[in-house]
Structure formats: C-alpha cells, structure tokens
C-alpha cells in the first residue's frame, strides 16, 4: 500500500510537471514561388520587431532582434548560410538606408525580412503572436518565398523576466528551427 502511495505520488508529480511544461509548438506556413530557386548562401536578415501602437513593455515582450540574431548566427552558418543581421526597429526610412549600407559590404544573395505580424493580447499582455517572413532574391528583387509563423501560448513559454533569459532564447531558437525546416521543405536550403 505504501508502495502504491509512493507510485501515485510520483505520478502526480509527473502530471504536475507536465502541466508546467512551457515547451511551445510553433507552426510555420509558407508560400513559395514556382520554378527553381537559388539555395540560400548569403542572407541579409532585416528585422522589425517593435510596433508604434504597443507600449514599451508590450514591445519588450516580443522576441527581440538580439535574441533572434543569436539564434540565426548559431544555426545558419553551420549549415552553410552566411548571415548579416540588420536591426531595422525604428530606423529612418523604414530601415532602407541601413539595409543598403549593410549590403554594400555583405553582398547578399537573398534578403529575408522579418516583422511582427498579428498579436493577440490577454489583459494587455502579449499572449501570442505571429512573425511574418518575406524572402527576396537580390538579383531580381522579386519576393520568392513568404511565411507566417505562429507562436502560440507565447506568454507562458517565453515571458520577459530577467531570470528567464534562457527560456526566451529557447523560444527564439524554436522560431528559427521552424523557419529553417520550412525553408528546407520548400527547397531553399
């Protein structure tokens, strides 16, 4: 009986821990242009995170450029993709001059533009949101791929907290992993 009780206690603990699990399942949908495309080799990634209509706290709740940059820089060079990140948040002319300057040095084969998409709030907190991605061919300047990634239950999985930096970085990693998998599935990696 005592043994059964211990087993039940362990099972309860397991269930409780599972309930607290913050693993977030991100989902990416994409649309790719028809015809063969160049594989990604040198990608300039410009990122717009903040929105004017959000409060500072709400903007800081979103995954920040630095967090996404760490993920891209950790994950893409090992698979043969050189990256250059441009923080276009609040930049003049929507970041155009910054991108031009960075590209004069980097000479990208493709441009990947990331921006915050639809945000869903709960009691004024960012509960979950989407990141929209557009990939442009540098030579033709045509948009060749587009994706939208849902970060459901974002608040629980990546809340902004000084003690939760690793949790937020894990959320950024999950986003980059999802984007990478979709690019691979669409033949661009």
């Amino acid at each position, binding site marked *: 009986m005592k043994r059964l009780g211990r087993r039940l206690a362990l099972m309860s603990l397991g269930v409780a821990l599972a309930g607290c699990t913050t693993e977030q399942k991100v989902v990416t949908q994409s649309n790719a242009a028809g015809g063969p495309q160049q594989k990604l080799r040198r990608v300039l990634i*410009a990122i717009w995170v903040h929105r004017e209509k959000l409060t500072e706290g709400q903007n800081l709740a979103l995954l920040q450029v630095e967090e996404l940059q760490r993920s891209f820089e950790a994950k893409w060079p090992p698979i043969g993709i050189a990256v250059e990140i441009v923080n276009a948040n609040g930049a003049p002319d929507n970041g155009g001059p910054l991108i031009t300057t960075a590209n004069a040095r980097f000479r990208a084969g493709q441009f990947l533009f990331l921006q915050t998409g639809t945000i869903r709030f709960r009691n004024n907190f960012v509960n979950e949101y989407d990141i929209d991605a557009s990939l442009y061919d540098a030579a033709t300047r*045509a948009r060749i791929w587009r994706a939208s990634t849902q970060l459901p239950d974002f608040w629980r999985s990546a809340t902004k907290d000084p003690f939760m930096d690793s949790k937020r970085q894990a959320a950024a990693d999950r986003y980059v992993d999802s984007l990478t998998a979709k690019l691979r599935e669409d033949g661009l990696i």
Partner: protein
Amino acid sequence: MEPQPFPSRRLFLLASGSAVLAACVTSDPTFIYESPPVSAPPAKMQRLLLWLPPNDDKIDGTNLSAAFSAALAPYGVVVETGRATALELARGSDQKGYIDRFNPTHRLEIDIAARRRLVAAPAQCRSF
C-alpha cells in the same frame, strides 16, 4: 503595413474601419486616406477591379463586393472582384489575368492592416 523594401507606387487606402469588422461595435467606421504626393490627374471610373483579402476571416468579401457593385452601378461603373492569395508573393502577377481580361480603369485594393476584437469574460482579448 508591411515594410516596402523596394519603391512601390501602389495607392494605399488605410481604412481605420475596424468597427465595421467587429459585430459588437455599432459606431460608424472612420477612414484615413493616403495618396502619393505626385499622382496622375483623376479620371472617371468606368471599370473597377476590387481586390480583397484571400478569405472572409476578417472581412465579408462577398457582401462587400456586392455592396460596391450596387453602390457604383448607378454611376455606370462595372465592378470585378479578385482575391489576393494567402501569403501573397507578387500582387502584380496575380492581377495580370484580371487586367488583361477586364481592362480596369481603376483598382481598389483592400487589406486588413489591423483588427480589434473585444471579447467578454473571462478575459479581454485584442488582436492587432
């Protein structure tokens, strides 16, 4: 609005008419218009290509299209409606077939830039 990496001369109609999208809000929508600083002199509308979002999630495209047709018919304006593709890549390519066949004198493109949704208990939710 999506960042425009390359110059575009598309005329944007920014409709802050979210009220019309939310069934629970009854006030009239308000509109803000932005036109390019340099634009061609206005020409009378004869054939209008109405370009709507890909689905009816955020706007009732079928009713909207019918309403435009009814409102413009007395002025002799013919309306043809097209739909954007989901995760649209190149709007110009998508519209080419309509333009070749219908030869519109004007295009009206409607995109939903933001949506506010008010939900009662248990929590208040908004979407942007």
